[in-house]
């Protein structure tokens, strides 16, 4: 089996995304859905139930009081927040353990990077208004999911990849693509396809390292921008460092200026302090 076939066959065996998510999302779109029915569905997944309670009490979501039962949580939490909480708790399981080892990321760092990107992406909707905040948050959380599965292959070829980055001044993903036949963004897109996420989300994950991403679909632009800023801040950044390409002139179409970017980074740091519970799921 060739290297690329070996990597692609991984996708076939990727654990499915928790089934309960799709069901809950549908229910939340229906104004008739009541809390009891919602609780019944969520309770099927014990990990999600536990996480919902844990995350609800994070100051990031700013609930007026502590909640101790799922029913109570569902009454207090608004639908949009509940969607974010469900997607966070369902994604966390894919980032457990030494998932970023090939990229020289310590345990938990890939998840920290993902949550930070999700939070910033949601914030960025203020500047890129065409995007739904929930979609921005979801893609932020999952944009690097390909790294989790490419990590061991990157580890095998690590030396050659780094030599290529340093000598040829190429980006880390370009080196991945050349040496492994696929990069983590492309692989991530395939995983989202398998998980049956909407096409615009698959596309945004696939293109998040495209140097011209800021000229593409709004969701793609938003996630690539959020990722670039989180990388610049050094949050959950491994051996790939800042070796990624993004042509900044694409920001003009959104009217985003360098001071806007500075302010987004400053605010993200505050948000992250309030979101500590999310990093330890």
């Amino acid at each position, binding site marked *: 089996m060739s290297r690329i076939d070996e990597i692609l066959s991984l996708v076939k065996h990727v654990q499915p995304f928790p089934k309960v998510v799709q069901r809950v999302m549908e229910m939340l779109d229906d104004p008739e859905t009541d809390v009891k029915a919602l609780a019944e569905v969520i309770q099927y997944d014990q990990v999600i139930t536990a996480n919902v309670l844990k995350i609800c009490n994070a100051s990031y979501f700013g609930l007026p009081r502590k909640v101790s039962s799922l029913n109570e949580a569902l009454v207090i939490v608004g639908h949009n927040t509940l969607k974010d909480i469900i997607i966070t708790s369902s994604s966390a399981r894919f980032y457990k353990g030494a998932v970023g080892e090939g990229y020289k990321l310590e345990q938990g760092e890939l998840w920290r990077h993902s949550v930070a990107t999700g939070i910033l992406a949601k914030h960025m909707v203020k500047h890129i208004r065409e995007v739904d905040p929930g979609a921005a948050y979801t893609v932020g959380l999952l944009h690097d999911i390909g790294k989790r599965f490419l990590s061991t292959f990157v580890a095998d070829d690590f030396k050659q990849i780094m030599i290529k980055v340093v000598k040829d001044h190429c980006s880390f993903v370009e080196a991945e693509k050349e040496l492994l036949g696929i990069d983590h963004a492309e692989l991530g897109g395939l995983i989202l396809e398998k998980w049956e996420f909407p096409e615009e989300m698959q596309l945004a994950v696939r293109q998040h390292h495209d140097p011209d991403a800021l000229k593409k679909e709004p969701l793609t632009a938003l996630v690539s921008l959020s990722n670039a800023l989180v990388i610049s801040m050094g949050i959950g950044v491994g051996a790939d460092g800042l070796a990624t390409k993004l042509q*900044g002139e694409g920001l003009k179409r959104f009217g985003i200026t360098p001071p806007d970017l500075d302010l987004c980074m*400053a605010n993200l740091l505050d948000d992250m302090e309030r979101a500590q519970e999310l990093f330890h799921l």
Partner: protein
Amino acid sequence: MKLVIGISDMKVSNQPDDVLITYSLGSCIGVVIWDPVAKVGGLLHYMLPDSSLDKEKAATKPFMFADSGIPLLFKETYKFGAVKTRLIVKVVGGSQIMDNAGIFNIGKRNHAVLRKMFWKNNIMIAKEDVGGTGNRTVSLEIGTGITRLKVSGRGEFEL
């Protein structure tokens, strides 16, 4: 003891066994200062150049910005007997992502402000490792002043 400095944070020590360390400097800048006589050192990890961006944040998190963080770093070491002319100053970080238009030049702007401030205040930089696309981890041993730098793609070495 190992003292970790987070993003927009600063620590100073005069305990010989202490090691100050900050992880993963991207566009941010790490300023390491050490007085070989008083054996006191400090490490600042700032994220942005200019505190006029958000006055409220500058008041609560002065170490977020170069212009509010750098003076505090120096002043804090003076409290422990450091003398400005003796301080050995090292500067690391300031990387940036690859962008021909230079819009994402946060690292460059962070560095430019520091240079200007140091020039105005007659502060010499002893060692510097700035720019590029690597991310950096830097540490300072308080007892010896040894500064170690780790850069992705270049390994670990003494600065």
